[in-house]
């Protein structure tokens, strides 16, 4: 039957158990009551059982002496230290290996991920094999491999393997030189920090001016030209000096090198810049190839090595020359050389002026062991290495996915507008890829931090090993120890998530 519409009719009454709002409230109340009951039962049950076994609870044990050894600690540690100190040592050791692992895994992962997208068949194939192998083998097995099959299989102390740069490796781990900066070196570090910040600020300012006016500021362009020449001179001088003092000894090597370098630097300011760049590329490539390949294959006649190096260097130089031809004029180019020169040159100058010294204390083999230097125990090396290799495979896939998620159309649109490759990547592809990469990257970082607890299996004294292992066994306070360890991991994870969520919300796309 149809009725006349006479304004809003009163909604028909519903039985209260059919009203969605009231139903929702009833469900909530039921769930809450069940949850509270369950928790109360668990707590009551545990308390009764502990009391029946005459076990005490509470955190008073934290102020008792631990009385055990920890093989590797950044904080001062002795048998007389308290349990709360063991807790801190565990946290710092976990954070140390996680921090180093995250940095190395990020660098390796991004490289492998980009390599997998390479148009070079061999590079792409190698990256694929790496990823597919590493991520399909359990991490614990990999840690055992690095620890037992690689590091523990190293020769004894007396037969240590000597690596370049005074690094030694043996059963007891990796011995590396320890930097011992003197008082003045602090100033070098401080100026490095300041110069780096200054260079970044200058870069941001120059880019802002470039956007607003269409040109980089005149002073920056001028300084950039000078910096270009300086860098050309320094690189050319170094390459030539090595060439004339090692490969083809000349009597006045420094003088000849300086003169040729000055000529190249002067050329780099004129319209023959491309030629200067080509020559420079040739020099670097030739010196590197000739010295390194020459040293690696000492049995090959040096003339043959030189000729082959020259031929390869010539090919590379041609690429440099052609690249330089299509380089935009310095007015339209980001003054990268200037920024690098500021960030490295200023602290270098301070180093030279203040007479600061940075001496490396080299590990030396004495009768039974190495003395001096920094000793990294095999447990630490194996864990850091294993976590890096493993997580890098996952990060590589994340990076590949992120880049591939930016549709081909975006690249084509940017190309059809005439954007150069560098600008296209910086302004169009990377900002979009990062949005896709960041969330899974966060969970990889969290995974790495949590996976560091597997260090317990190879005896690295991280949090689980020290506190949920030794301390728990000695005190018997299982609930307290486990709860504290869980709380640490939870805090770390929530903190990382909070930061990443904030970042993600800031950059997410506006859709409607």
């Amino acid at each position, binding site marked *: 039957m149809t009725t006349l519409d006479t304004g809003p009719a009163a909604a028909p009454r519903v039985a209260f158990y059919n009203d969605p709002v009231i139903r929702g409230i009833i469900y909530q109340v039921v769930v809450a009551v069940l949850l509270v009951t369950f928790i109360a039962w668990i707590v009551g049950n545990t308390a009764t059982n502990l009391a029946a076994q005459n076990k005490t609870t509470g955190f008073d044990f934290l102020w008792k002496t631990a009385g055990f050894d920890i093989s590797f600690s950044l904080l001062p540690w002795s048998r007389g230290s308290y349990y709360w100190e063991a807790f801190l040592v565990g946290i710092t050791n976990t954070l140390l290996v996680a921090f180093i692992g995250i940095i190395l895994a990020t660098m390796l992962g991004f490289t492998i991920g980009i390599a997998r997208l390479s148009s070079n068949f061999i590079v792409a194939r190698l990256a694929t094999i790496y990823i597919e192998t590493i991520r399909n083998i359990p991490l614990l097995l990999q840690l055992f491999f690095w620890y037992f099959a690689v590091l523990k299989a190293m020769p004894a102390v007396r037969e240590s393997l000597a690596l370049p740069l005074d690094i030694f490796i043996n059963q007891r781990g990796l011995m590396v030189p320890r930097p011992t900066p003197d008082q003045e070196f602090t100033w070098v570090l401080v100026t490095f920090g300041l110069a780096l910040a200054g260079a970044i600020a200058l870069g941001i300012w120059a880019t802002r001016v470039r956007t607003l006016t*269409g040109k980089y500021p005149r002073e920056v362009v001028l300084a950039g030209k000078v910096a270009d020449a300086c860098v050309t001179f320094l690189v050319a001088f170094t390459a030539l000096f090595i060439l004339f003092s090692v490969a083809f000894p000349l009597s006045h090597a420094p003088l000849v090198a300086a003169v040729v370098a000055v000529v190249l630097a002067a050329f780099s300011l004129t319209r023959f810049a491309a030629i200067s760049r080509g020559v420079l590329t040739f020099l670097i490539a030739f010196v590197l190839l000739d010295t390194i390949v020459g040293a690696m294959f000492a049995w090959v006649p040096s003339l043959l090595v030189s000729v082959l190096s020259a031929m390869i260097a010539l090919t590379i130089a041609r690429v440099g020359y052609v690249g330089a031809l299509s380089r935009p004029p310095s007015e339209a180019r980001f003054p990268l050389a200037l920024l690098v020169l500021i960030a490295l040159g200023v602290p270098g100058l301070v180093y030279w002026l203040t007479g600061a010294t940075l001496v490396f204390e080299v590990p030396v083999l004495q009768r039974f062991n190495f003395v001096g230097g920094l000793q990294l125990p095999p447990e630490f090396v194996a864990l850091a290495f294993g976590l890096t290799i493993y997580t890098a495979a996952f990060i590589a896939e994340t990076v590949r996915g992120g880049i591939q998620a930016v549709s081909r159309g975006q690249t084509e*649109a940017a*190309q059809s*507008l*005439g954007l150069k490759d560098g600008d296209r990547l910086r302004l*169009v592809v990377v900002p979009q890829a990062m949005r896709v990469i960041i969330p899974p990257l966060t969970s990889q970082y969290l995974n790495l931090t949590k996976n560091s607890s597997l260090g317990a299996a190879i005896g690295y004294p991280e949090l689980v090993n020290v506190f949920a292992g030794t301390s728990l066994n000695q005190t018997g306070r299982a609930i307290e120890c486990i709860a504290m360890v869980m709380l640490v991991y939870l805090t770390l994870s929530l903190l990382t998530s909070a930061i990443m969520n904030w970042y993600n919300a800031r*950059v997410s*796309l506006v859709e409607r």
Partner: protein
Amino acid sequence: MSQVSETTVDRPVDTSHMKVSSTNVAIEVIGMHKWYSDFHVLRDINLKVMEGERIVIAGPSGSGKSTLIRCINRLEEHQEGQIIVNGTELTADLKRIDEVRREVGMVFQHFNLFPHLTILENLTLAPIWVRGIPKAEAEATAMHYLERVKIPEQALKYPGQLSGGQQQRVAIARSLCMQPKIMLFDEPTSALDPEMVKEVLEVMISLAEEGMTMICVTHEMGFARQVANRVIFMDQGQIIEQNEPEAFFSNPQHERTKLFLSQILH
């Protein structure tokens, strides 16, 4: 059969004052071939486009229409023959490619706006970073073109907040901000709802009225009739037939063209 629409705009379009230069060549394609590995996509393409021409390329799917115009700004590489745009021959030389791309605008089927930038930033990106135009000036130009495509009020929104027709108009404005001499349209209305097709065609017609050299790959036969001065029919990578729209539609010469037209025009 690909989708073909007969959408037209409601006003009469006067093509009489759209001047086609008789001396200045905008694009010249000579004996061009292209392969995708073994597949011969484009066979012996010869095409001369004068300044001010409005060319519509029609043909069944997979006939190589899109590939042809994508070769003109080197989104695709040709393997044989010559493509000369504005007097610059396209080779592997990056400098020449940049030169050509600066003068040739392109509009895509799926708009390809940059989703992380506002409409205004989409429009000013290339003028600032390619042409080195000051930001304020680039923004003024951008607003001018947004007004031309009738959506200046959307300047601060993001592409995801706009309808398809609006996005395509923004994409056209984005190309125009580079002040190109030639515009390429790659099925600009194929991804749009019928009522949005009209607003995009309006913009394209007004461009033609200003004397822009245009090549459109499109299924809009109404647009071809109203605006084009030449219709090119392609099939299996070859240019089969080309003629003025009137003659093309009423008196097709080639069997393949007749079949195509009989299928799309009732």
